[in-house]
């Protein structure tokens, strides 16, 4: 390739690829954004999500299987045994260390420790990241309630949308009829 053709090829290439790029970005400029406004609008969280643990205290037998399975030893539990009854003192999980690997869930013989769908922590103090799962149940339950509510809302929204679409379809059909009439009248 001579220098001259190379010179003009550069000019043509740069203009051409720039126009192609502008076309692609311009197409997206006119489309609807795909992000959501986070605190107001949340993406659905799948059931298997590995969030903050919750404990079914009644089932737990204080066997330490989860604590042993933990790679970083962030689970600590303390209970006093009165015969068959257990008196719980604490069941703490240090979320500064926890890496949400779910290894503590599998060895549980009673299937009582689970990973919930709650994931957000905000605190001014590090010590607050050591959660006591016994007292923490409330929040996990809250999360569940919120999920159920969100699902209800979603369903209602979908139904409303369907109803609206149905209405719109009717309107569109009517409009099409009108247009057809107009066209025929123009023809005449």
């Amino acid at each position, binding site marked *: 390739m001579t220098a001259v053709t190379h010179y003009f090829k550069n000019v043509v290439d740069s203009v051409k690829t*720039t126009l192609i790029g*502008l076309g*692609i*970005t*311009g197409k*997206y400029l006119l489309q609807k954004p*795909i*992000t959501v*406004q986070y605190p107001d609008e949340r993406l659905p969280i799948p059931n298997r999500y590995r969030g903050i643990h919750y404990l079914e205290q009644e089932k737990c037998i204080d066997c330490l299987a989860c604590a042993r399975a933990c790679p970083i030893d962030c689970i600590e539990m303390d209970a006093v045994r009165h015969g068959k009854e257990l008196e719980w003192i604490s069941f703490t999980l240090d979320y500064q260390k926890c890496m949400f690997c779910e290894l503590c869930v599998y060895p549980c013989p009673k299937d009582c420790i689970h990973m919930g769908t709650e994931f957000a922590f905000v605190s001014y103090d590090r010590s607050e990241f050591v959660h006591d799962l016994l007292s923490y149940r409330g929040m996990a339950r809250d999360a569940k309630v919120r999920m159920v509510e969100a699902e209800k809302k979603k369903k209602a929204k979908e139904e409303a949308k369907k109803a609206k679409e149905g209405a719109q379809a009717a309107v569109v059909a009517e409009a099409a009829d009108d247009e057809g009439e107009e066209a025929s009248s123009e023809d005449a």
Partner: protein
Amino acid sequence: MLTFDPAIGFSSAVLAVQSAESGLKDGFGTNAIQDFLVGVKPEYVPAWAVPLTAIGIAIGIVLAIVSVLAMFSTWLERKVSGHIQCRFGPMRVGWHGWLQPLADGVKLLLKEDMIPLGADRTLYVIAPALVLASLLGAMAAFPLTETFYFANFGLGIFMILALTSTTTIGVVMAGWSSNSKWSLYGAMREAAQVVAYEIPLGISLLVPIMVAGSFNLIEVSQGQGGGYGILNWNIWPWVNPFMLPAFVLFFVAILAETKRAPFDLPEAESELVAGFMTEYSGIRWSFFFMEEYAAMFLYCVVGSFFFFGGFESPVTSLAESVGGTNSLLHQLGAASTIVLKGFAGVFLMMWLRWTLPRVRIDQVMTMGYKYLTPLALVCVLGAGLWEAFIAPHLWWRS
């Protein structure tokens, strides 16, 4: 007239500033303010205070316009980039985040103003002010309508080119005084880049100047009015076939002049952290920011004056026919036309920024010296020949 020398441009601009008063024509600009002040002046105020006050008020108005433009531009930029990238952009403050620039402004004002240890304090403090001041000076030559302006220079475009290129001094000052290697890199790049692109910028502007036969922005705009309306704009090939390539060259050159992507090498956030602005924070940093957006708008306005009909548009002519020449309606039509045209250019620059990667510094130089300058010269030659031999015979040009 065909020879262009930045030095001549600068000296003529200085002359223009010196003879500003004599150069002022009748209009709503400083003269109107001055007339008003003369009317209300109490006895004990000396006469020489009147023009000074008038200029002060004019500067205040320009500053306000620049700030509003820059603020709106930042909002627009964030919205354009957001929607191009399938995001929303700012949404929280006001309707679709339109008050976000205000919130940012408050934040920047309250932010700690740091001066790095070992920086040259004097230069460090002067630099952002100098950058903004030179741009404000250039903004004075921008007429909002045919009769509303602050200064109507015979060599208006030279004034703008000369003053905007002095921002480089401020940028180099900032880079040097920051005592940071990244800043120094950014400053050196800016200097090299602006010097390289001044040439094609000036040369490509010669093409519409030749067609219009004037350096005055208002006269250039008036030259594109007439019976054919939108078809009379300079950009059309039947006016001059070299106009479109000249505009493309001009547009590329102003991208480089305003440090916009793909020529944002002085900032180059992935290479030089933030270039010459690395060490700046708070309000000083926002001066650079304001300068960038105001310069974008100013250059786009210049482009629309020289290539896209200036004040002329169907809206303006409609307003003129309804309200009469120089009526308030006509003024509003002309002002909104030029502002919209300016923002259309700004939008195009943003669109390009969010599409293209950044070029390398040697490629910037290659592009400036090896591609834009020769091509601009070719355009000027061709346009000159067209104007000399073909244009006189065209019935629509007479």
